[in-house]
């Protein structure tokens, strides 16, 4: 194949209808989030519910101001909901922890005083998950998976933006969290690097089948990355729809169905009165 990274995502095993007693990996139940400014309390999301199942690539999609990043921060345990619950394997999330590793958009998420390898080892050591030797082994394994084995001893400031995000992804995968949380991880990258990172993320998912909660404001990215998309309306964030996107991947970019679905999403997000489509 001419382009080594271009690959076709095989559709994941078909989703079974949720049986009773099947606990979602991550569950949001009527989550209302608020944030405080000096003058007032602003509602970021209003009674948002969704289920992320094991192995899902679940995308939160919406315009800015729909509270999608705040939802992700709540899932990570940085923000406590005003009401409602976020549950991880049935247990309410109350504080941050290494079972929910976040990949942030900003490049300064990597401590600059640690080498690439030490950065990947950091959460493993900080949370006392593994011994130094085991952590080192695992770090090198995942660095190899994201193609940065040669940069293990480099410091983050010598890397490009895309490489830094790869380190952050390797770090998150090495911790083997129950849910991988990604907050617009590719938004600060140039378009070509972003496309490549999406491909790599999908091939990593093919290999490891991790559970992913992914925040984006790009309809195209949501369709490419996700198998399930939650549409949020802005001010405050409310669930507009939940769509299935298993059929779409990088292979279907530009196909008529892809275009149709992205137009449908566009309509859902921006044209309020499309009553026939809003049956969420």
């Amino acid at each position: 194949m001419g382009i080594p990274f271009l690959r076709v995502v095989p559709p994941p095993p078909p989703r079974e209808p949720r049986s009773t007693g099947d606990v979602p990996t991550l569950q949001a139940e009527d989550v209302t989030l608020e944030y405080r400014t000096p003058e007032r309390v602003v509602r970021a999301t209003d009674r948002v519910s969704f289920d992320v199942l094991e192995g899902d690539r679940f995308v939160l999609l919406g315009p800015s101001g729909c509270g999608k990043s705040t939802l992700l921060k709540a899932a990570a345990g940085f923000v406590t909901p005003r009401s409602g619950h976020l549950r991880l394997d049935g247990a309410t999330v109350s504080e941050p922890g290494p079972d929910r590793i976040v990949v942030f958009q900003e490049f300064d998420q990597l401590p600059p005083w640690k080498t690439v390898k030490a950065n990947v080892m950091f959460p493993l050591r900080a949370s006392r998950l593994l011994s130094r030797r085991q952590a080192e082994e695992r770090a090198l394994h995942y660095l190899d998976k994201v193609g940065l084995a040669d940069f293990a001893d480099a410091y983050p400031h010598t890397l490009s933006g895309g490489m830094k995000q790869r380190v952050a992804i390797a770090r998150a995968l090495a911790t083997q969290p129950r849910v991988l949380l990604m907050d617009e991880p590719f938004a600060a990258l140039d378009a070509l690097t972003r496309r490549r990172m999406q491909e790599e993320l999908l091939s990593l998912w093919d290999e490891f089948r991790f559970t992913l909660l992914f925040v984006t404001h790009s309809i195209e990215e949501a369709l490419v990355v996700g198998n399930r998309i939650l549409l949020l309306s802005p001010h405050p964030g409310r669930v507009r729809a939940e769509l299935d996107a298993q059929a779409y991947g990088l292979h279907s970019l530009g196909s008529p169905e892809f275009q149709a679905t992205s137009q449908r999403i566009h309509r859902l997000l921006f044209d309020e009165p499309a009553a026939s489509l809003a049956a969420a």
Partner: protein
Amino acid sequence: MTASLARPEYERDLPPLSADEVVQPLPPAARLWQQAWVRKTVLLLVLAGLWEVAARLKANDLLLPTFVDTAIAFGQGLWSGELLHRAGMSLAVLLRGYALGIVAAFVLTTLATSTRLGRDLLDTLTSMFNPLPAIALLPIALLWFGLGQGSLVFVLVHSVLWPLALNTYSGFRSVPETLRLAGRNYGLRGLRYVLFILVPAALPAIVAGLKIGWAFAWRTLIAAELVFGTTNSGQGGLGWYIFQNRNELYTDRVFAGLAMVIAIGLLVENLVFATLERATVRRWGMQR
């Protein structure tokens, strides 16, 4: 219209370039001038030259000994061991005060990052005591701790603590939010959070604070010894050496004592702090 803009397409094969076409070495002179120590040595030599010329024009050994005379007095002081002995006395007291000041600053700033009351405490204390000259506290310190090292250590802690605490705290506050979240994400909290995230992330500010604290401590110590003489049964430090020689009108030795103060300052700055910065903040790309 568009037809007129049409022109032929083309494709090119790119032959590989050899490495020395892409990267070229700097000439040796430029590379030498890149070294900070070369530039600084040249500056020092120029300053010494100006001093020599000024002293010879003035031609009054009591007021301004020449650079050469001072260098001779300095050499003699080193040779006899007196200068080194005095410097050692000063440094011993200095390091004790410095270390205590660092510990106190760390405790205060850690308190300030973890509680609001701690922050108010740090704010209030630094704005009260930072402008207060350490020398002004010496009379009280002498009352409390007597004529001994205790008084000196007390004023030294005072001169190190506030600037270091201020710098460290402002460093802690400017740690990027993402880095804080990442640290908490790994389950770090309390002292481990401060040690593994805040301290390294704020290291440029902390090193700046350490430098300022060091300079303040030196000034305070020399001044205290100059003003109040020996505090340790005839075993004074460098300040006392300068004071004694001034009384006996050995101006060249006064200058030699001052030169020793400067030399120690340069050594610490260029060896200790520069090494610390090279091994940490520069290597990590946090400071250029």
